[in-house]
């Protein structure tokens, strides 16, 4: 890995290439890692309201729902890492009250996504999903474009959840307002 462009190209190529099952498996794991890193990096560019993150050292909770394998990858990724003075922790939410305590919540499944997003809204949670289309209650949507992972930000949802997303983040994202 000498060149990040080569690395990213290889990643994109391997995601698209499914001819060999073993290589497909490895490419899948790599994609999970990239998504996990995305979740972690997202935490760097978001400011939560003070009642959600009371001080500079309070722990940021990342929740992964409906995808046990991805949850494990995220745990690995954030292990021993921090955002500024904030520690990071991973939770797999069991119910809606667990979800309400999350700072970032990733929903892997499409089924019941809209309900879950609606259930968690109003709790200042940065919701991340990968549905084919933007959701009114979802803040960030991940999607593949030209073999690269891109993301879309729903500025309306972010405003409603009182999340301040960094302009630097927004400059990289596709913006919608639902």
């Amino acid at each position: 890995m000498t060149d990040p462009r080569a690395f990213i190209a290889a990643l994109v190529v391997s995601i698209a290439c499914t001819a060999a099952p073993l290589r497909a498996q490895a490419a899948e794991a790599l994609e999970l890692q990239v998504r996990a890193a995305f979740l972690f990096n997202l935490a760097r560019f978001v400011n939560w309201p003070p009642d959600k993150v009371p001080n500079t050292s309070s722990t940021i909770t990342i929740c992964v729902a409906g995808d046990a394998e991805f949850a494990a990858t995220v745990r690995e990724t954030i292990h021993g890492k921090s955002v500024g003075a904030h520690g990071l922790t991973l939770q797999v939410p069991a119910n809606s009250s667990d979800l309400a305590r999350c700072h970032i919540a990733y929903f892997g499944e499409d089924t019941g996504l809209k309900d879950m997003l609606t259930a968690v809204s109003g709790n200042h949670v940065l919701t991340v999903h990968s549905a084919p289309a933007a959701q009114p209650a979802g803040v960030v949507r991940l999607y593949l474009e030209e073999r690269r992972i891109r993301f879309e930000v729903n500025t309306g949802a972010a405003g409603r959840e009182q999340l301040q997303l960094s302009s630097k983040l927004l400059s990289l994202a596709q913006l919608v307002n639902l």
Partner: protein
Amino acid sequence: MFTRNRFLRQFSNQPIRRKLTLLMALSSSVGLILSGIALISYAWSTARNTAIRDVQSVSQISANSTSAALVFGDVIAARELLSALRSKPEVDSACLYAEDGDASLLFAEYVQNGVEPCPPTAAAVGIHEHLRGLSLVREVEQNGDRIGWLQVQVNLQPLTHSLLVQVGITIAILAASFAVSLGIAWLMQPALAGPILDLANVARRISESGDYSLRARRLGADEVGRLGDDFNSMLDQIAVRDRDIETARDALSRQVSEKTAANKELLEALDRLKQTQAQLVQSERLASLGGLVAGVAHEINTPVGVGVTAASTLQDRALDLEQAYKTDTLRRSDLERFVEVARESSNIILRNLQRAADLIQSFKQVAVDQSSGERRRFDLRNYIDEVLLSLAPRTKKTGHRIVVDCPPDLEVDSYPGALAQVLTNFVSNSLLHAFPDGHNGELRISAQRSGDWIDLHYSDNGTGIPPDDLKRIYDPFFTTKRGSGGSGLGLHIVYNLVQQILGGTIEVASEIGAGTRFTVRFPAHLKSKS
């Protein structure tokens, strides 16, 4: 140190004109050089600091704007963000590096001005200077976490170029001002060096020609002007002194010629005096010889007279006896009386002839010694007696006692004539001066040997010599009795004889009323005259 000394020596050998010109040009140039260096250094450091501040703020902005693109791996966005630097032409390149474990990976780059592409890994954080300019490497942070590095390289060549232009302008100004100050110095130096050179010129002309009437021109009222005034007044003093010296020299040479003439006369007079003195000494010696002869004649006269009387008595008695015998009236008693008279007469005649013979013998000795000046070996005691005997005609009738205290067999090898004359003159002086009232005094001659020397003392118990006269007794022609026969040469002759003939010394001591005492010391065996 050596170099500095040599430089100073060379500098001090330069003409004063050149020194002044050089000093003025050098001092103005040094000021310009220093201020030029200071200004250029200040400009360089200011420009460099500004450039550093610029690159710091540029890199700060770029790092901040590209952090999201970096963490989300959006190379295109990162490149676009970096390409905003095209509005900064001094930026050569910007290189964004991602973290890869402990190492760094080139993530995105922006290159302009045709410089080389970014190196594959990031350099150490900080400012790096190179020929073209400088590069700054800083960390890219988000929430205080390091997420990568950014290297921004700026081109300082325009800055360097403008600085070089400044240096060139400074050098040009320097050269121009050097030339101008040389010109000013050249124009000004006559005012400074002129009077000094003029003064030096006058001094050299004076020392070459010896003409002290030359004067330095007065070209100003500054120190050099005062120096010129002092120089001129010094020349005045020298001129006055020269005149004085001239006058004094003339007077001196006149005096010298006068003195020389006088000296010549004096020398001639001295010569004449010496000749006269020698003649007088000679005639005195002849006179003393004459006196001796007169004394001798007188002394011999007595025994010869007695002898004549006795012989004529004897002749008368013999004629009486012959008459009586022829007339046969001769009586026995007549014959007896004649025999007695004949015996007495012959006795008297014999005794007096003997005395006359003795006298003649001793006179002959003294006279021979005095006239011949012969050196010989003699018995001092006997000789003193002989001298006294020759003086007896003059001493006997005065009634003075003459005491001789001299051991017998004191043999002396010297000039007896000189000694005789010394003693004769002592005695003559005593007789002439010491006893004016005619009372009977005592003359004492004593001699003894003291090592190789003879100490001869002569003293009388007469009136003595006054201290003022005592200092002059050896002077020729000094006498207190010129009217009554003193020549003033007696003690002068004594002094010369003791010193020159006997090789000795003479001292005198005298006390008024107690007498005079001479002490003569001379070698018992005179060394041969050289």
